[in-house]
Structures are given as C-alpha cells and as structure tokens.
C-alpha cells in the first residue's frame, strides 16, 4: 500500500501542490493582514476567493488521478502485480485525504493563532472555527470525490460539465445550509455516494 501511495504522490506532485499553494497564500495573506492591520473584510474576501481555488485544486487532483490512469493504462500494469484494483483506488483516496489535511490543518492553526483573519471574529469563536473547519474539510473532500467520479469518464466535455455541475451543487449546499451539522450531513452523504460510484466504476469496468 505504501508503494502505491508513494507512486500516486510522485506522479501527481504538481496537482497535490496546487491546493497546498492556495492554503499557503491564504496563510500569508492572514499574516500580512495581521501585521499591517489590513481591514478584516478585505482579507476575508481574498480568503474566500482563494478557498474556491483550493476546492478547485482538490477537484483537479481527483480528476487527474483517474484520467491519467485511464489515458496511460496505468492500472492495466498495476492490477497485474500483487495488488487489487480496490487497493489502487484506496491508495488514491488516501493521497487525496493527505493532501486535504496538508492544506486545511495549517489554515486551522493560522485561524487559531490569528483570530479574525481567516474566519470573522465572532462570539464563541472556537466553536465556530470547529464547525467551519469541519465543513470546509468535508466540502474539499466532496470536491475531490467529484473529481474522482468525473475523471474516469473518457469524454473531456462530460468531465468538464460534470465537475462544474457537481461543484455548483456542493457550493450551493454550503451556501444554503451554512457551516453546521446539516451541511456536514449532506456533504457526508455526497462524499459517500461519489466515492462509492467512483470506486465501483473503477473496480468493475474494463481496463
């Protein structure tokens, strides 16, 4: 499993770095804003836009992992070695989770250290921070799962249309439900459905 994870990381290094890059930029903006006293609405607006970039980066990672596999017939070779297709898929998802954690955890730490720079300073700040962090993590993972789902398609047009529609669905969910338990529950369902569909497609189709 470790070999499979290492292979995924090495092959998709650029796409793993993309969400992490957005995360680093957000942290830099928060630090600079705090240091120079930039008004909170400006830094929050920038953060919100960069967060969209982070989600898109995660979606790209999932899409590229599956698309590169199908186009390069990588799993044809891998699945004739001592691994199953289920293990190949699991390694892929673990890399997605790892990327998400690498991107989100520093943001949460920054929000803790510099309150008001990434999340608006409100009463019961820590409670809100926890809710926002979990919802954002789940939304990011949902975007990644959507990427996995659409990336297995052979048609690039369907890949693009599918990702736009499903990402719009995730954004609307968070927009309507806000950062809370309701949004988390719906996102969890969405993640489960997308992962199940992507996994079963990958395991059962012709390679």
């Amino acid at each position: 499993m470790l070999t499979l994870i290492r292979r995924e990381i090495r092959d998709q290094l650029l796409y793993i770095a993309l969400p992490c890059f957005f995360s680093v930029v957000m942290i830099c903006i928060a630090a600079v804003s705090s240091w120079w006293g930039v008004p909170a609405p400006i830094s929050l607006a920038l953060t919100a836009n960069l967060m969209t970039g982070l989600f898109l980066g995660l979606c790209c990672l999932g899409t590229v992992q599956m698309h590169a596999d199908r186009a390069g017939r990588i799993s044809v070779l891998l699945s004739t070695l001592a691994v199953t297709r289920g293990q190949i898929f699991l390694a892929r998802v673990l890399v997605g989770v790892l990327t998400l954690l690498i991107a989100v955890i520093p943001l949460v730490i920054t929000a803790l250290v510099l309150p008001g720079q990434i999340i608006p300073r409100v009463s019961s700040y820590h409670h809100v921070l926890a809710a926002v962090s979990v919802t954002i993590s789940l939304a990011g993972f949902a975007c990644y799962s959507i990427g996995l789902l659409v990336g297995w398609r052979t048609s690039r047009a369907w890949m693009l249309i599918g990702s736009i529609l499903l990402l719009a669905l995730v954004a609307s969910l968070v927009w309507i439900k806000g950062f809370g338990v309701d949004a988390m529950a719906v996102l969890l369902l969405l993640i489960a459905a997308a992962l199940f569909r992507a996994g079963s497609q990958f395991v059962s189709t012709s390679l």
Partner: protein
Amino acid sequence: MTDNPIVIEELVKYYDGRCILDGVSLRVPRGCIYGLLGRNGSGKTTVIRILLGLEPPTRGRTLVLGEDSTRLSANAHGRVGYVAEGHHLIQSYTVSRLIGLCKGLSLHWNDEFFGQLMETFRLPMDRKVKDLSTGMRAQLNLALAMAIDPELVILDDPTLGLDTVARRQFLELAIDVIQRQGRTILFSSHILADVERIADRIGILVAGQLVVDCSLDELKSRVKKLRVIFPERTPEDLYLTGIINQQAMGREMVLTVANWNPQKQAILQTFGLESCTEMPMTLEDIFIECTRPASAAAPQESEV
C-alpha cells in the same frame, strides 16, 4: 495448490451485441505449456484479459490459481506473470523507476535472476519506457514478469512487432525461463512456429469457439494430409467423416482428414487406390486447415 491453474467454464463474452467468445471451456493442467492459437479477432486476447480480471465476462466462469478471475486476490495476482500484447508499461516512467515500482508491488522478487536478465538485455536504466524500442519493451516486460518467480505465466502474443532476431532472442530466453520446474504457461501467438517449439498442448479458437483442445502430438496424429492416387479418375462418391479439405486434379486427390483412424483408411482402400501417401503437416498447416471458414470437422477431444 490446484491441479489446474487455469479453468475456463462456458465462457461467453459480448461486445456491443457482438459475440466474441461463445461458450469456451478449457483447463490448463499444472506444468503445461498451453499454446492458444487463433486468427485476428478470434478472441485470444479477450480470454486472457478475462482470466486476469481486466475484463468482466458476460457469462461463464474463469478460475486462476483456484480463484475466480473477477475477484482475484492480491496474492493470486502476485503469482501470475503477464506479458501483454503491446506491452502495457507505464510510458512516462524511466526503466529504473518502473523496476522499482514492480519490485515494490511484488510478493517475491528474484534479484539474481532479474539481474541476469537485465545483463542479457542491457536495457538503459535511465531512459523513459516510451523511448525504448518495441523489442526493448518486450524484453523489459518479460524480465518484470519473470522476476516475480510466477507459478503461472501468461504471454499474450509477446513477440508481436519484434524483428526476426529480437523474436528469436526473446523466445530462446522465454524457453529457458519456461523450462524452470512446475511453471504453467498460457501462450498466445500468431507465429505458429514459436508455439510449435514450446507448447505441449494446443487450443485453437475460431470465431470465439474453441475448436481444438488437445496435445500437440495428438493433434498431429489426428489430422492427416494424404495424397491419394486413384486407378482412373477421382470418385465423386467419396464420403468420409471429418474431411476438412479436399482438392482433386485428374487421378490425384489431396485430402485433409480429422480424427484419422483405421476405419477411415479401410473405407479409402475400397476404392482400389493406386497409392496413398501421407504428407507431412506442420502446426501451421493444421492451423490453416482448421481455421478455414467451413471447419466443422475440426477435431475435438471428445470426438476421439
């Protein structure tokens, strides 16, 4: 350990409503070198892909090392060496990186044997797979498949696209590898001379059906090509079961007959033959005769 590393039962495969495999059944016993033959599009690669779990069957069942192909465990995968038609290697990797990956994902890795193979092949380790010649890719694929010390080796037209020298070199090495004890081989090829050199059992697929499944010696003994000279002209009422092909010219007739036996010989003698001589047949001759469109008389093991 199962007695039959490969078992195929009533395998049926449809693609877009087109029947590719039509009820194929066969068993490959342990230690056997099985040559699977057939013309382009006869279903050889589909059989192999279904066996390896790369393709789901429409109906029927295939077992590899005792496990269902659709649910092969990592352990079973790790005991099968596969050399694919076209050599599906990761093109963007360098040779050394690909070797590292395969080594990391194998159950056993015979460093000594792999080293010997690499020394023989002299592959450039720092070159990308996509920059290797077809011959080099075939050699790399063979080396990777053999380094895991597989119980079962599946070779799907491994010499396709190789020049004569590379093909000979590849085969000589493959024979050396194959001769290691207890190894079962399923070998599909277009080049019948290659199969004849190494196979001890033959299967011939024609339009998705397995029309021949017997040992090479048995096949050669059962299909006879005879040059028959009649006293006057060739009779029009020559009825013999199992005639695959017949060509008449004056008093002479060339007959290809399946399931040849003394009864058939006696029937032929009733025509008062002037002479009846057996013509030598190579596997290629038999293959061509068996894969003619009207090959209903092709020999099945059950017909003996």
